[in-house]
């Protein structure tokens, strides 16, 4: 018997009963949580950046004054400069070192599992534990590093207490902490390179280096692009390690953008100014990521 046509069989009905409707209902709890904890603070930050607000008393609207002040703030400019220096050091060093390590670890030697674990251990070590360790290692008077240097007749260094060396010590500390992460990514990518390709290259008479350069490296493109983008974003947002070691010092030598933002918001009660900094940082990272993706699209080879 033919079913009767009813009015309810219209666009609304189809929409409500479609698969996408139930799909949306399934994800709605997650969406709501992300909305509350992710989107809401982001929106509130934007609102804050147009206010002068100390988080204790109600704020006053100042329009674009915070952003205008940022462009004239020499301390902000200095923090941007330091952040860029840090990023330009951190990202290439980690990427290149991690690649070398991954190639070295991509073999079947005895104890390889131990070596891989050892490389990854710093990544899972808490930032505070790492900081305490490095604080003592690099202590100018009682640290092992200076003890070794002096033993070899070299002058003792200031490390975290030297305004000229502190930022580079942070680079070393964070490279140590992040290397394992990049190594694991590269290892996984290396293991995704089909063995037949390497064998074909060997048969064709390619040296180990040429095989690496011409076969493996191009296939690592996607992983490299991911790492460069990911590491850049993290480097530009550097905060934790600074907070637990030098606290932006000595003499502000390690005051990077996010640390400056933290001081503004929570020590100087200028939350509006701080959120303006956060948004400038966000825009900077966004632009950089887009540029990196565009360059990546041009040069990275994805297997179909």
């Amino acid at each position, binding site marked *: 018997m033919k079913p009767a046509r009813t009015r*309810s069989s219209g666009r609304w009905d189809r929409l409500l009963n479609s698969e996408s409707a*139930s799909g949306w*209902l399934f994800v709605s*709890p997650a969406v709501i949580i992300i909305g509350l904890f992710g989107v809401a603070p982001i929106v509130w930050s934007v609102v804050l950046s147009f206010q002068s607000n*100390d988080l204790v008393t109600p704020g006053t609207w100042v329009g674009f004054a915070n952003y205008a002040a940022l462009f004239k703030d020499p301390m902000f400019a200095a923090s941007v400069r330091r952040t860029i220096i840090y990023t330009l050091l951190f990202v290439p060093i980690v990427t290149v070192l991690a690649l070398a390590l991954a190639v070295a670890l991509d073999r079947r030697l005895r104890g390889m599992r131990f070596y891989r674990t050892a490389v990854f251990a710093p990544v899972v070590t808490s930032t505070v534990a790492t900081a305490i360790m490095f604080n003592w290692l690099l202590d100018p008077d009682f640290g092992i590093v200076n003890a070794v240097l002096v033993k070899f007749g070299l002058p003792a260094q200031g490390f975290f207490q030297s305004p000229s060396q502190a930022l580079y010590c942070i680079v070393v500390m964070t490279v140590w902490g992040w290397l394992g992460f990049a190594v694991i990514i590269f290892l996984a990518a290396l293991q995704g390179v089909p063995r037949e390709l390497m064998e074909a290259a060997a048969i064709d008479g390619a040296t180990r280096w040429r095989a690496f350069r011409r076969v493996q490296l191009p296939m690592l493109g996607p992983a490299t692009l991911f790492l460069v983008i990911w590491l850049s974003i993290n480097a530009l947002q550097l905060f934790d390690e600074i907070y637990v070691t030098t606290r932006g010092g*000595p003499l502000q030598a390690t005051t990077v953008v996010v640390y400056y933002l933290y001081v503004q918001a*929570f020590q100087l*009660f200028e939350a509006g100014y701080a959120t303006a900094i956060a948004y400038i940082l966000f825009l900077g990272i966004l632009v950089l990521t887009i540029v990196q993706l565009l360059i990546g699209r041009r040069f990275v080879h994805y297997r179909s």
Partner: protein
Amino acid sequence: MKRVRTSSFVLMVLMLVAVGVLAAACGSGGGGSSPGTSASPGGSGTVVLWHGDIDVERAALDELSAQYNAQDPAWKIDMVFSGNSDYALQKLLTAMAGGKAPDIMYQYGSSLANLARSPKIVNMGDLIAKTPSYDWNDFFDAARLACTVDGKVRAVPSLVDNLCLVYNKKLFDAAGVSYPTASWTWTDFRDAAKKLTNASTKQYGWAYVADGSEDTVWRYLATLWQAGGDLLNADNTKAAFDSPAGLKSMQLLYDMAVVDKSVYLDQGTGNYLSLFNSGKIAMLWTGPWDMSTINKDVQYGVEILPADVTHASIAGPDAWVMVDNGPDRVQGAWDFLQWFTSAKTQMEWALKTGNLPIRKSQTKMPAYKLYLAKFPYAATFVANLDNVTKARPNIPAYPKISIALGQAVQGVLLGKLQPQQALDQASQQVDAILAAPGQ
């Protein structure tokens, strides 16, 4: 007729219910603690106290709170450890912004000026006025000053301390230097530090926290006041430390740290205490909070600070602030604080923890002798409270002033700034800070 399949219909209903429950939970969770509503006047329940104490102090807090709760008060007390007190200000600001602030919280005195701007911080002056038996004037001057902002009392004292000279007797004996006395001058101090410094054994005569934070600033302020100087002018509108006294005190730090190299520069990590315990540092300018961490095998002595013009010291009183979560909770929290900051309970607290008495009447109680017997160093610290005649200005701009001065002092200690240069730089910044609108 088109029909929704039963199974997906049921699923959709379940999802809607889940979403509804979630939204309701989030909604009520963010609404803040609701005041107790019950038949009895004033309500009943539990008031929450946040603190940053560990080890001995924490155990003492737990014991005392159990004692209080055993009295069966209308509002019981719940002591919650909320992390290091260094971050207490940020924690409270966050909690207040989120509507879930505790009823009582331990805060550094220096945070009060900014916290007091919020109307949610209870005006203790009103509560104290209604409770004459509280005897506000019984508290030490330094403590009362720290709790007062703009002439209003916005907190009650939780801790009183001050800086004294703590020294390692064995190192003094080994170097043949006579122990510090109550009539020591800066010259005696500097000479002793020089004699107690040995570059080859990495021994230092003095340690200074040089991370540019308030820890750096307040020790400098002690030297500034010892030289007879002042931080700001009388109405807190201009810097007053760019003066001969200010220069003398900066010069002392420069001479000792850069010229004599007799100062270990701690980077805010607290390493100085471990090194003091290992016998690598001879003298510290520190307070009672460090005393319980000194190893039993270190023979130490405590003396008042050396003088230039005066033996001035500086106190860092801390406070209990109360947050207004409703009149019933305020009353419940105030009942607890009255009990906790009474002379009797504070004497018990002092006996358990070695913390200094916060009320003058405590020094007249018979238990005070027991306290001094148990904590012999306390006598010097309590007597030194007489040398604390000036306090840091309790104004909202102080954190900014602290940063400016901290950078200057750190620069001098690291040898990157000459003393007069540092003073010029800092006083310019401080004048600009105080001249800014809204300060």
